[in-house]
């Protein structure tokens, strides 16, 4: 649709097309299934859920669980609901995504347009960092954050997410800028533009598609992160996932599944929104950068 409306040269028969549609719709159902389960059960009273029939539509429709999950469910000692944590997440995600994307863009710019000796090794080092299992960094990271005085703060979390996201953003921007015509950079140099002016005036305005990919990727990962959020957040900076976990994982006590599901959907709304709004640019961005050699 939105992506390169070029003519596909492939021709298919009517039977084949019907089959293709059938397969596509079946898979669409498969992908929708968990969301369906969550939505349906989030608008049922609890008795209806414990009575069985998780696929059934609600007999009694209620938005009570949503209201409760948002504003009055017990997360800690006070029944605050998820709402305060939502803002904690926003305060952490926005700077973390912005900084890691800008750093990735600058790195990609340097690594493709200002090549120097050993630049591929530097890139390799940055890229390999994507593969470090997060479980092993918890303790040393805690120590570092403590030394830097960032323990328990939102900025500490931002730092952590930037560190472990910059490998991906660099990869995306590097691949994108690799096919960006070098002559443009040279022309700008002759025109007298400096390092940052070239980046700001020439490269960045053309980086929309890959920025979308980078932002979607980072936003999703950081918003959904639990491990770092739980380990490094302080009392005032715990993100949404930690609160959701507190809601869902409450150990001893009645499990209000409808509230859990409502909370889960609430926690997922921002990422869902990002996918739906920016999704149409996503394939275009991938096409422009990350899948090219």
């Amino acid at each position, binding site marked *: 649709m939105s992506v390169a409306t070029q003519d596909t040269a492939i021709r298919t028969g009517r039977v084949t097309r019907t089959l293709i549609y059938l397969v596509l719709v079946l898979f669409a159902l498969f992908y929708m299934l968990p969301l369906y389960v969550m939505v349906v059960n989030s608008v049922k009273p609890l008795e209806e859920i414990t009575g069985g029939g998780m696929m059934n539509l609600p007999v009694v429709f209620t938005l009570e669980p949503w209201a409760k999950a948002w504003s009055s469910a017990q997360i800690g000692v006070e029944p605050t609901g998820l709402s305060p944590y939502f803002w904690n997440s926003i305060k952490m995600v926005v700077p973390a995504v912005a900084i890691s994307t800008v750093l990735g863009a600058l790195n990609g710019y340097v690594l493709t347009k200002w090549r120097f000796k050993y630049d591929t090794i530097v890139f390799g080092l940055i890229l390999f960092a994507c593969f470090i299992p997060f479980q092993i960094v918890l303790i040393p990271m805690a120590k570092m954050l403590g030394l830097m005085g960032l323990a328990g703060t939102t900025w500490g979390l931002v730092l952590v997410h930037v560190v472990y996201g910059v490998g991906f953003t660099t990869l995306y921007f590097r691949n994108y800028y690799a096919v960006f*015509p070098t*002559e*443009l950079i*040279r*022309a*700008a*140099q*002759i*025109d*007298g*533009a*400096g390092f940052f*002016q070239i980046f700001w*005036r*020439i490269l960045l*305005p*053309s980086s929309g598609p890959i920025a979308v990919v980078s932002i979607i990727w980072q936003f999703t990962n950081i918003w959904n992160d639990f491990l770092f959020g739980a380990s490094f957040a302080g009392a005032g900076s715990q993100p949404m996932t930690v609160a959701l976990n507190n809601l869902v994982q409450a150990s001893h006590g009645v499990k209000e599944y409808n509230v859990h599901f409502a909370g889960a959907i609430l926690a997922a709304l921002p990422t869902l929104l990002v996918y739906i709004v920016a999704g149409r640019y996503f394939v275009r961005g991938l096409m422009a950068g990350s899948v090219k050699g």
Partner: protein
Amino acid sequence: MGFLDIDNTTKSYGAVEVLHKVDISVQEGEFLVLVGPSGCGKSTLLNMIAGLEEITSGEIRIKDAVMNGVHPSKRNIAMVFQSYALYPNMTVGQNITFGLEMHGTPKPERDKAMKDVASLLQIEQLLDRKPGALSGGQRQRVAMGRALVRNPDVFLFDEPLSNLDAKLRVDMRTEIKKLHQKLGTTIVYVTHDQIEAMTLSTRIAVMNGGYVQQLGTPQEIYDAPANIFVATFMGSPAMNVLPAKVEIENGRPTAQVILHDGSTVSLPFSQDNMKDWAGKEILLGIRPETITDEDAADRKSSNIAHMTNRIVVTEPAGSDTFVTMTLGGKDVIARMRSDANVQAGADFTFAVNMEKAVAFDPKTEARIAP
């Protein structure tokens, strides 16, 4: 000292030297063309003049100021790129004035300069468009406008016409020539197209393998190529190069050339110094247009030789007809008038203007005469 001096300049990537001691001095207002096959080092040299590549050794000076290590934007040069390198996110107008903006020129002056350039290049109506909405020729003009507006000391062109179709290329060629005559700026122009080189330049540097093979006016290059590479690279169809043996006949040096049937024809040289080569093998260079029929032979020439040889193929090309024959064991092309009475398979008597013939040393491939 010239306006632009390239003084003993070399370029190496690691241990590999790709440009060997280039030494060119360009006068103010000159149009220098660097021509050669791809990989000959011509674009590297241009980039070094622009400051886009570092100079390994030697010096480049503009107006006597050493440019080594000077940032491109401080050299007062402008460059037109093969892909035009127009900034896709800016309008034509912004593209043209970007350089001025970067140099801190105030807006009113920028606008005036932009208008002047736009009217010069007749692109006023395009100023608000984005490059994506322009045709190839229009982009070319914008790219030139961007260079012109800076009013630089030296213009650098990097194969600016190679992305255009044949018709447009010829038009733009003329356009560039006109501009040069009008503005009188110093230009260094890179191309692999020898016709562009011949038509545009005041001087040509023919490059190959990282060496400047010959530096001279178009006429010098054409008439007295320094070696076989230059001889065959410049001119279309290329100069015929065939083996011959030098003999003294009647006190004059002659080239003994084997015809299609194995018999020998004797073609007298105009140059006396060919006597030194008596009894030796040489390579004889003859331009196709100097092999004609008797009627078309150059009246002013003092040395027309004749030979009868069999025609293998004829190729009528409108204004001319190209005739292929076997001479000295090679395919040799003659350029005839279109009304010449030539037929494939027939024998024909050709007139060869030996005044224009060139001889090369078969070992060094360097020219020995004239």
